[in-house]
């Protein structure tokens, strides 16, 4: 077994029922657990973009990308590089039993530029946007106060520069050839 690494895939698909399960079954078929998944419509409402984080080895992830590319509802697939921009929104509900802990939590929030979006007796809810490193760091710091609940949106990612997933490449043309419908 070769070494597993975390890969991020961006997948443009038809915004239709059933497409998500078609995409996800390719991962489950190989026994891969999707580490993180974020889906939403793009600037074109008929097209959704999925960002999928998966632990896999190089050969398997390339095979996965190719098998995704040949699916009719899939428009294009990009295997993102390490340099890509990755962001995630995390909501964290932290216990603050007294004013002392509350100000300590607020101080940490400040340092991480997290916003406090709800205050209640005994707790605060923070929202933070960042890559894994940043969100993991604040999560670790807040643990000592007691995290009551935590939710992540899943990583969304874009490649840096002006290249996009919509760019036509020779390889994309090759995959489209197989989708020829005449």
């Amino acid at each position, binding site marked *: 077994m070769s070494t597993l690494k975390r890969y991020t895939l961006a997948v443009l698909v038809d915004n239709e029922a059933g497409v998500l399960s078609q995409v996800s079954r390719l991962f489950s078929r190989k026994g891969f657990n999707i580490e993180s998944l974020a889906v939403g419509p793009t600037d074109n409402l008929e097209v959704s973009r999925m960002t999928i984080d998966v632990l896999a080895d190089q050969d398997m992830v390339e095979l996965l990308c190719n098998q995704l590319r*040949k699916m009719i509802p899939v428009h294009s697939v990009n295997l993102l590089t390490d340099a890509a921009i990755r962001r995630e929104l995390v909501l964290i509900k932290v216990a603050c039993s007294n004013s002392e802990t509350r100000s300590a939590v607020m101080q940490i929030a400040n340092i991480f530029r997290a916003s406090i979006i709800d205050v209640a007796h005994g707790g605060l809810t923070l929202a933070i946007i960042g890559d894994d490193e940043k969100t993991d760091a604040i999560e670790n710091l807040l643990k000592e106060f007691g995290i009551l609940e935590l939710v992540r949106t899943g990583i969304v990612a874009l490649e840096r520069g002006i290249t996009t997933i919509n760019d036509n490449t020779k*390889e*994309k043309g090759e995959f489209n050839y197989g989708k020829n419908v005449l």
Partner: protein
Amino acid sequence: MMMSGAKVLVECLLEQGVDTVFGYPGGTILNIYDELGNYEKQIRHILTSHEQGAAHAADGYARSTGKVGVCFATSGPGATNLTTGIATAYMDSSPVVFITCNVSEPLIGKDSFQEVDITGITMPITKCNYLVKSVDQLADIVREAFAIARSGRPGPVLIDIVKNVTSSQTDYTPLPREEHARNGKLAKLIQRSSQDFRTPEPDSGDVDRLVHMIAESHRPLLICGGGVVVGRADKEFLEFATKIDAPVAITVMGGGGFKGRNPLTTGMIGMHGSQASNMACDNCDLLIAVGCRFSDRVALDPATFAKQAKIVQIDIDRAEIDKNVKTDHHIIGDAKRVLAVLNERVTPANHQSWKDYVFSFKTETEYDEGGDTLTPKQISSVIAKLAPEDSIVTTDVGQHQMWAIQHFHYDYPGQLITSGGFGTMGFGLGAAIGAKIGNPDKTVLHITGDGCFRMNCIELATEQYYKTPVITIVFNNHTLGMVRQWQTLIYDKHYCATTLDRGPDFVKLADAYGLRGRRVTNVEELSAALTDALQCQEGYVIDCAIDIDEMVRPMVTGGSAITDFIVD
């Protein structure tokens, strides 16, 4: 024109030129059957004994004619009975449109009677599938489904229609097939790419690179895969092989893509491949595979497969490139078109010394003959001698399948119909009926074993009723021969659950279905029976008794180097 969904569906089948439908009715699909009855003159419905038989028949019809097969089934068990047939078609890239109905929309998701999520179940075994919940979308979806089934790399598509859609009214406008691509979702699918789909050409640079590789090669080998058959590229392939003077190994799915009697043929390649094919593969310096996905039955050990060669794949499906075997070059495109372009550019070559080397090995297995019992080779020889050369052969799966492929020579695409990828026992009879319906003037032979035949012999009733005479030839060794062969060679002769010392009597069975049958034990009896079968134009079952310990030779076990024959 206002009409019911059921009528729209049948009209859409006519748009596609469909004249034959295989199927089995049931509660939810009754509206469609009710309408189909009004179109008896245009569309012939073949009622099988079981939905699986209908699926295989539609598949056999599609493979033998090159047209899209159509198969109907009702919801729930009707739909799930199709699944083996759908998977068989999927693995062998056969274009079949499966139409099932589901319970009415208010009942969906409530575990209603005969309800099943068939679109969910068939997701991994269809090219694409649809759940139709609005009658307004029906025509558009049927048009898209047919286009997808037959285009690119063909494959099965399933349309599941909820029952109330078939009874709802909608405005239907007929649309000739040529217009489909300019309308509805199909038009969008085409617009998605900047490519011009109408004249897809292989990349010129890629072709030139291969031409250069061919010029540099001294020991080229071609593999004729299923893509040559599906793409009906046999003429172009023949010209190519002749021009570059390369030996041709044929895969199971490639049978019929290259004439089996051509002197360049080395025979089958892979697990039961000939010595010539496997040795050529191991020693070539350039391997060009056309429409071949290097399955684990061909590239038994991907790491050592064609280890001296630069490997080139020509395929229509980009996802097949580098999937099983790492390649040095590939050309994406339709086999017919790519080969035509290559033929214009390659320089003719002569590789006599390489051919001398390759053909110093056997292209066919030699068997010891002359005992009292009938041998597989003798059966094959008798059939080859007596049956018309253009006979269509369907097989089931196992030893008889390998013998049928090793010892018969297939001359044109669609002549050999076999479940190569999925290895479906019980495929052959349904496929034979479908092939006979698609090719009424040809002799159709169904080569089977006693294990496989028992699985779906219920379709003898279909064969009899529709007067589609098929000659079934049972290689009867009273065992699951291929499994027994593995038990002999790999499991120390531990014959667990493979011996078939049981009924039925196949001759009596044929008789019970109103067909003719004979049991034969030697060449003379077989010749007489086959002559009778060919003359009588009735369905016929010939039960050939062979020895329980017959083996398919040569054999290389899975995962081994392709020249590590465990039996010669």
